[in-house]
């Protein structure tokens, strides 16, 4: 408590400009941060309060104030640059210790305000830090594997049109069955991975155009895994990929614990 806002006041404003602070994330007290470049190429700054450290990028409020921010967020080029810059900071922090990532576009009018927020929410933030210490998030996505061509056409009476309809019906049935099988397998895979994880979330599948995949996503899972067991987790994904061929699995990570920053009840798989 005693240290509240000390550091904050020390380096508050940049040459009297209207300067704000973009919050990347919250970490515990650490000796020294590696040099990290934040938003717009500026080195990040630390704000300490209540035994916690907020890592922020100084930003000009003419560009990151409310109106400007709203406008900028709709510019894909800007959004991509900013999202990547924010992610790089959070990622760098996560490689040297636990971090609670902040959602994109959490901006304060000055660094003193950040210190105040750290103090206000210190219990919750400490709990979140404890939860993610020595753990990392892994993403596992599952994609539908299209069913093969239906077996030889069943013979039957009727002309070309009837045969076509019969074949088409068989195709559609095969597709439905394929989707059901993939959904079932996705639920089983998620359950198996959750058992090996400290916590798990099942997110909405990404749209195909966002995922860039040829087929629908049926699993978009996030798993908080002990760092010491990361290899084991990856091995399990591999085993499951072999066991459930109706879904194509892809693992990504390690990620900073984005999905586990907030204390939500463990989400239940859909089935």
């Amino acid at each position, binding site marked *: 408590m005693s240290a509240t806002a000390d550091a904050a006041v020390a380096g508050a404003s940049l040459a009297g400009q209207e300067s704000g602070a973009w919050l990347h994330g919250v970490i515990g007290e650490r000796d020294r941060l590696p040099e990290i470049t934040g938003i717009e190429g500026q080195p990040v700054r630390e704000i300490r309060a209540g035994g916690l450290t907020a890592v922020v990028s100084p930003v000009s409020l003419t560009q990151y104030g409310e109106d400007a921010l709203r406008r900028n967020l709709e510019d894909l080029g800007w959004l991509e640059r900013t999202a990547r810059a924010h992610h790089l900071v959070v990622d760098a922090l996560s490689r040297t210790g636990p971090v609670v990532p902040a959602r994109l576009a959490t901006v304060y009018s000055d660094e003193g305000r950040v210190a105040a927020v750290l103090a206000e929410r210190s219990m919750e933030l400490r709990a979140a830090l404890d939860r993610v210490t020595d753990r990392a998030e892994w993403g596992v996505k599952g994609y539908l594997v299209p069913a093969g061509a239906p077996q030889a056409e069943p013979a039957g009476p009727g002309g070309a049109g009837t045969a076509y309809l019969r074949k088409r019906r068989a195709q559609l049935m095969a597709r439905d069955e394929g989707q059901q099988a993939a959904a079932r397998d996705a639920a089983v895979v998620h359950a198996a991975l959750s058992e090996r994880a400290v916590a798990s979330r099942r997110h909405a599948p990404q749209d195909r155009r966002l995922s860039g995949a040829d087929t629908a996503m049926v699993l978009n899972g996030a798993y908080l895994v002990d760092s010491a067991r990361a290899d084991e987790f990856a091995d399990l994904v591999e085993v499951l990929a072999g066991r459930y061929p109706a879904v194509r*699995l892809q693992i990504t990570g390690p990620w900073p614990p984005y999905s586990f920053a907030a204390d939500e009840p463990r989400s239940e798989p859909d089935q």
Partner: protein
Amino acid sequence: MTRPTVVQNSGQVLPAGHEPANLGDILERVLDRGIVIAGDIRVSLLDIELLTLKLRLVIASVDTARQIGIDWWEHDPWLTSRARPPIEPGPRDPEEVEAQRRPRVAARAERLGTLSEEEG
């Protein structure tokens, strides 16, 4: 974290280091997850024209999308966020549309064929 891997296609293991994180994966995380702490600058990400944003991610222009009648965002769980089916119906696939049309055409052709035979 000694051996980050990417597993694809039933067990094929690729080293992850070579693959820069995919923009979609990053956006999904930074926009939709992470702790929400009220900032002073109140820009709710839900207020943002996410539709525009996402369209631009995947399609060059909104106008093009409208012209070709794309309306998938209305059913998109990433946009409508909460209530979400495990498998999304997906966009209308031109092939699918064509495939649905084909049997009708074939049936009509057959019917016409039969008629002309009877007449002839």
